[in-house]
């Protein structure tokens, strides 16, 4: 390891908040601050490009919040969340954040976070190598989703939940189907299901979740199988357990 061995990026929309971190970093020669970002969009672009080892990540920011930024990264850097309030602390650890700094913090507390990062990065380096393909898998919902962010190349798209007809499992991906088009996102259907409001979305089949508002009727195919007919005559299979869940809702 040479002297400057940890590449870091600070993401916070408040200039003063970034300044505090930079000041605290000044004594840590081994950390090389390669960029600063002021919003989620920039952060995703810059991080995926520069591939830093460490992120100082604010949670509430314009465009994308800190968690959404993490979902859109191509790899998993070490993350220190820096936020004013501890309502997200639980979720931060669920997405394997290294630490969670509450603003304002002391330099001792900051140094402690840095040494945790070094342990994580230095040690057996496993944390750095592990590709967390499915962050939300562990993100047990402390709040249900209002929108889903997907990345298509460098373009980030927001899909409001209200637009979704259904979600289909496709291997390691889910297909998010709106009336206009379908979006692929790297996530499992089960992990997504956990973050959706169960009163609005229902798993009707191993491979399908539908938005209940879009359901027009159920048709019986034979004794053991049914077909859910959504608006615009979208027909999806309903499994036996899916049928039981539907019955319960209706």
């Amino acid at each position: 390891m040479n002297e400057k061995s940890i590449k870091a990026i600070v993401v916070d929309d408040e200039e003063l908040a970034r300044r505090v971190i930079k000041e605290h970093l000044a004594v840590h020669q081994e950390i090389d601050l390669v960029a600063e970002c002021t919003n989620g969009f920039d952060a995703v672009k810059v991080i995926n490009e520069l591939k830093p080892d460490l992120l100082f990540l604010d949670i509430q920011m314009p465009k994308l919040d800190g968690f959404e930024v993490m979902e859109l990264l191509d790899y998993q850097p070490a993350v220190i969340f820096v936020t004013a309030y501890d309502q997200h602390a639980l979720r931060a650890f669920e997405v394997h954040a290294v630490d969670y700094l509450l603003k304002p913090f002391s330099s001792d507390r900051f140094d402690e976070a840095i040494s945790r990062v070094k342990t994580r990065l230095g040690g057996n380096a496993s944390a750095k190598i592990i590709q967390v393909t499915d962050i939300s898998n562990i993100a047990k919902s402390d709040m249900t989703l209002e929108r889903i962010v997907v990345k298509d190349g460098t373009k980030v798209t927001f899909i409001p939940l209200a637009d979704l007809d259904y979600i289909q499992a496709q291997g390691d991906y889910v297909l998010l189907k709106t009336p206009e088009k379908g979006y692929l996102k790297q996530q499992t259907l089960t992990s997504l299901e956990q973050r959706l409001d169960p009163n609005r979305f229902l798993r009707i089949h191993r491979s399908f979740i539908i938005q209940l508002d879009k359901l027009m009727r159920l048709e019986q195919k034979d004794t053991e199988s049914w077909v859910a007919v959504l608006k615009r005559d979208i027909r999806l299979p309903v499994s036996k357990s899916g049928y039981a869940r539907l019955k319960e809702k209706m």
Partner: protein
Amino acid sequence: MHPILASRTNLIAYTLGWMVAGVIFALLAIATEESLVNSLAFGVLTAICAAIVFFPLYYPCLALKPDKTHTAILLPSLVALAGLFGSIWATAIFFALDLVQRIRNESDQLPSFLNLILMGFIVSVITEAIYYIYISRVRSAESEKLEQKLRVMARDAELRALRAQLNPHFLFNSLNSISALTTANPSQAREMCILLSDFLRKSLRLGEQLTVTLSEELDLMKNYFAIEQIRFSPRLSVEWEIDLETSCAEIPTLLLQPLGENAVKHGISQLIEGGVVRVRVETLGENVLVQIDNPIDPETEAPKGLGLGIRQVNQRLATFFGADGRMEINSSSGIYRVKLFFPMMKKEVNDE
């Protein structure tokens, strides 16, 4: 449902009432030198007929509200009703007596039909009066309940507003800004400390009162924005346009503060470049208009519906000003606009 059938107490009272009336009728009959048996029969028959005939009289009494019907309509209607129901009652008694006599094979003289009608008219008027007393008692009990509910709601909103006041995000972010400024710009750090202290002191003081003047509330908001301007530096600017005529208008404490916080939280802080919050206060005849505009990010504008804060403002407006207070919200071409309308009520200011 008819209240007499709706509660057992009412049914018993109604039955007892007509039994007493029956006794009175019987006594009246004895006074006119009828035989005891005939008088008793008369009493029983009149009471039974009355209990049946006057039962539906409740509905027109309920419909003709004394406070909402013009006296020129109300009085003749009541007289006509009394005449109608009295006549029906008299007719019923007349035939009942006739029937009884035929069964008993007697031919005593029946009481004069005219007298019966007169009696029926008097009994009708008394019944109407009793129904009206009953209705007004029920109504006043209901309105008291409603008033109590409104009071509870008002206090509730008050408490919630105060709790929201100690918005932890705001406090900790402000403290973090101070922490950043201590090394880079100590004098600004001190300024921020003073602004924050002023803000907290003002909120605590206002929190003790139920109502404040519009200018006190706007002062607090200015203080709030001054703090957020340091935090967001060039991203937040605020423009004020305030008609001084409105400064002593009375409003519920901390009515506007949540709107200011919303403008920052859902507007400015979501925008990379930030923007301008515009606060405008003007008089519209007898009313005051408060309008707060803030830019929003059209791209990430989530369909969240009305936030809790906004709903509370609306509720408090309605609780305090009744139908005269209202709120309008619209959001178009990247500007979110909240308008509050309420009547101008001058608050007595004691300068002690």
